[in-house]
């Protein structure tokens, strides 16, 4: 349906997921996911804790085995489309005490194109520096990463994804526990990526900002509750179906958001 709306063939869709099921330890974590994301959208993936948001992203990137289903990125398997994909893992997934500088971390974004044995080139470092400038961390390039604040660490990860120079980005909770300056920097960056025709999927947890930041939304709770333009999808009814009883906690906030539009 969404394909017809946007009027592009399925081959050029940045992301198309069919019948995806992922199971850990006998228990399916996400099931029967069908999803088509049109080009050039800022997409939020929203859902309660344990809804399988990170799992969905990881399954798209072949990081965890799928029980069934297929994922195509620009009509190809992830393996073939890899160079067109950028990834921002959760910040807590690494040890920030590791002996590398911010610049080193960002330069890792070029490793995918560098190939075996090749040393990190001057060009890679220049690209990394450029990306650090774009996230406002140029002054921190040579700091060891443990000396960065949480928000700065998050921006380092974003810069690393920028260096990947991808067409579609997967970001796992980039807004988690960041300061306002970082939040603003990320939002600006997202808009800039969109302007350049990139597609960005963001696992997001702050319902209050969904309508403000994202023009496309996927509501997820083990299965897709609803997916489409945020205006159409981000409704009280859908939120209730995603969050269930927990909804009462933020009904008011959601009301305000819906009304403020």
């Amino acid at each position, binding site marked *: 349906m969404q394909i017809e709306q946007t009027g592009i063939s399925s081959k050029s869709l940045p992301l198309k997921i069919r019948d995806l099921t992922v199971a850990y330890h006998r228990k399916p974590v996400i099931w029967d996911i069908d999803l088509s994301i049109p080009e050039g959208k800022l997409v939020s993936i929203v859902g309660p804790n344990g809804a399988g948001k990170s799992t969905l992203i*990881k399954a798209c*990137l*072949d*990081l965890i085995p799928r029980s069934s289903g297929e994922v195509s990125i620009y009509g190809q398997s992830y*393996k073939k489309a*890899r160079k067109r*994909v950028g*990834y921002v*893992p959760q910040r807590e*997934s*690494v*040890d920030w005490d*590791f*002996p*590398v*500088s911010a610049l*080193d*971390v960002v330069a*890792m974004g070029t*490793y*995918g194109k*560098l190939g*075996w*044995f*090749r*040393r*990190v080139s001057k060009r890679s470092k220049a690209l990394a520096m450029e990306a650090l400038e774009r996230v406002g961390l140029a002054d921190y390039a040579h700091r*060891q990463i443990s000396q960065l*604040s949480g*928000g*700065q660490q998050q921006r380092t990860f974003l810069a*690393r994804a920028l260096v990947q120079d991808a067409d579609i980005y997967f970001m796992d909770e980039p807004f988690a526990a960041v*300061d*306002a*300056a*970082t939040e*603003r920097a990320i939002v600006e960056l997202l808009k800039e990526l969109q302007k350049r025709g990139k597609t960005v999927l963001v696992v997001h947890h702050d319902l209050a900002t969904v309508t403000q930041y994202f023009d496309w939304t996927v509501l997820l709770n083990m299965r897709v509750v609803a997916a489409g333009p945020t205006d159409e999808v981000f409704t009280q009814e859908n939120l209730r179906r995603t969050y269930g009883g927990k909804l009462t906690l933020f009904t008011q906030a959601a009301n305000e958001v819906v009304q403020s539009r």
Partner: protein
Amino acid sequence: MPELADIWNVLFLRDYNTRLVVICTMLLGCACGLMGGFLLLRKRSLMGDTLSHATLPGVGLSFILAVALGGDGKSLPILLGGAAITGVIGCAAVLFIREQTRIKDDAAMGIVLSVFFGAGIAILGVIQTMPEGSAAGLESFIYGKTASMVMSDFQILVFVTICVITCSLLLFKEFRLLCFDETFAAALGWPVKFLDILLLALITAVTVTGLQAVGLILIIAFLITPAAAARFWTNQLDRMLVLSALIGGASGWLGASLSAFIPRLPAGAVIVLVAALFFVVSMLIGTERGVMFRFLRQSQLKKRMGRQHLLRALYEILEGGRVTEELNIRTVPFRQIRGRRTWSDTQLRDYIRRAYNEGLVEAPNKVDSILLTKTGLAEAAQVTRNHRLWEMYLIEYADVATSRVDRDADMVEHVLGEKMVTRLENKLQAYRSAGSLVPQSPHPIHPGD
């Protein structure tokens, strides 16, 4: 007691008997240091320990097998091959237990380590009862027997060391990525499993060749200690690895030499002790993360804060009395300043003494009051102004401020830029009272009240 000349000869490889052994342990130290760096950062230190303990049954079994097939039971390549095989099986067992059951890493390693080691001891016991096994001397693998190293050991060690160095150089980028962010490496399409296995294979090679020199119980210390020591000196992986290899090499060299001229001192133990010495020294005086530097930095910061607090307190008291530069009244009673913050007499007197040394206050007089000098007043005004600019900044830019505020900065301008400071100063003007040097605080807080 050995002669000085003997020591000299051993240390500088002039002594024929010990030369080979010292070179061997030095090479081993380099290889261990290099691999230990990756092992440490991959958070697999205990895995290395499991690996080394799990080599013992392999040594025994390969001996029995070789003898049963009519070969030479003590052929080194066969023994080390067997050691490597059970070592890897041990690691695989840990991974299997971890993946397939709900038993955690540490428990899995504990189980595997002790079971394999126990099995090894049992097998060695059986060998002792075999007619061919009487002079097996396989126990030397447990504690190490450096002096028994011969040319073939040397050749194996050279080979392993070259492999380790070559791989570390060629795959530096890959190993760094693997150790730092495995998931991202996988997303980029790097064969994470293969790299992991390669790293484990290199570590196995180093461990197995090191069995003879330091023994399987102590080899883990030889792997981890130099790397841990090197970490105190640098925040860059390449430098850390080089340093770790150097520390490992130096430990091997000094340790083997020491044990050579002190009889009945087992080399393995001495090597590990030397490495531990390097570690302790690094921990204390390491320039990047050493305890002493951390302590020094902390106390310096405390002193700077004390100085600022003193100057600001003095200024604020004077300010309360409507003091201007023209009036030139710059004395403050000690009691009044003492009550200003929660500092102790000794602390405060210490700060005052330091301020005096800097020429900011006049010599403490008998009246027990403090007199700011002309420079002191200017400096106090400057410190207070900076403080208030930061306050203003925090109020005006509450959302972005926390990541930028550096109250310790002598010059606000350096951090925020001229433009921003001018803007803040304009805002602060609203709080200026007639005649004072610095506008009032936009948000007065009185600590200790």
